[in-house]
């Protein structure tokens, strides 16, 4: 499947790692954003984006706020969103589920876990 990913993380290192991992598992199309605000701009500017991978803790606009904004827009209501974050406590995961993230990965992740979650989301 020819997917275009929007990779959102304020850490350049993490964006590169996520992108490298995506390439490694066969996904070569991607767009990058450093925070939620930039992600929304890119999402509205690029109609090819059909999968979002976002961090939680970011300046300007957090990942959680980004998910809320995306879900609040009927054009993107069903857009797959994978949260990749260091936040692993129960309350955070429940909060993320409440705003309707499609799945959740805790950093540091392995390629197998990332691929598994992407596959799970795509099969839904």
């Amino acid at each position, binding site marked *: 499947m020819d997917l275009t990913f929007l990779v959102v993380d304020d850490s350049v290192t*993490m964006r*590169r790692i996520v992108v490298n991992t995506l390439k490694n598992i066969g996904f070569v199309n991607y767009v990058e954003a450093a925070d939620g605000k930039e992600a929304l701009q890119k999402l509205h500017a690029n109609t090819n984006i059909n999968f979002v991978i976002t961090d*939680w*803790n970011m*300046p300007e606009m957090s990942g959680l706020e980004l998910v809320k904004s995306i879900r609040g827009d009927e054009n993107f209501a069903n857009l797959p969103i994978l949260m990749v*974050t*260091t936040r692993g406590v129960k309350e955070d995961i*429940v909060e993320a589920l409440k705003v309707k993230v499609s799945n959740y990965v805790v950093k*540091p992740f392995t*390629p197998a876990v990332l691929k598994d979650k992407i596959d799970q989301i795509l099969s839904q």
Partner: protein
Amino acid sequence: MSLKNNMADVFSKLDDLKTVFKFGEKVVPIIQNLIEFMKEIVPLLEQINTSIADSTKQMPKATYQINDVTSATELATNEILDLVDQISNTLERLEASVDGLIEQSKSRDELRIKLLNVLAGNDEAISIFNEYEKLQITSGEIDEYKQIIKSVSEDTYKITLSLQVQDITTQQLGAVNHLIVSVNNRLSSLIENIEKSDLHSDIEELSIELPKDVHFDANATYNNREGKQDAVDELIEVENKKTTQAEIDELFK
């Protein structure tokens, strides 16, 4: 009578005065001790005040240093990632060359069979040809090279994954920085109030809580164990299995 009463009054007052003097005799040494204590404690308090003031002045420097560390590690991590990318590209080219060698090897095997047919009957030529063949790279060796390249490529990718530690330490350092700034602010206000001799309220205010708008995770940890992700998966499964009120209502219709 009046004189008698007055005298009794005087004696009563004298008794009171005597009590006061007796009390004074007991209290004076205590007051003297208190004065001595104050003489000793005041310079000590001043010293503590100066020490807190000095520490407070150092705190901004500490936060700058932490920011420097964060920037330096991010720069270094990206340099490592650049090198890893270069190595990966070189390995890809190397792998393509090895694939070319495998194709060449197949063609060579076909030519070898043809040549041996041509040389049939010429034992000396066959012997020389066999010697020549021994010097060539075998297809087994080529496969081995390919395996080595694959292994190095996988290890290189593992380096990339391990560099996730940079993001996690950045968040931890961000949390430390935030605490330093908070402590600094509290101490500054404490120093100000020590001078106004109003300690209590500020000591109570010294507890520090992280605000909600920070963009770091104070609990970020670098942990490769799979348990953490398993716990998340389990929780998501449980949450997704929760029956909604609408579903429950449907059952009772």
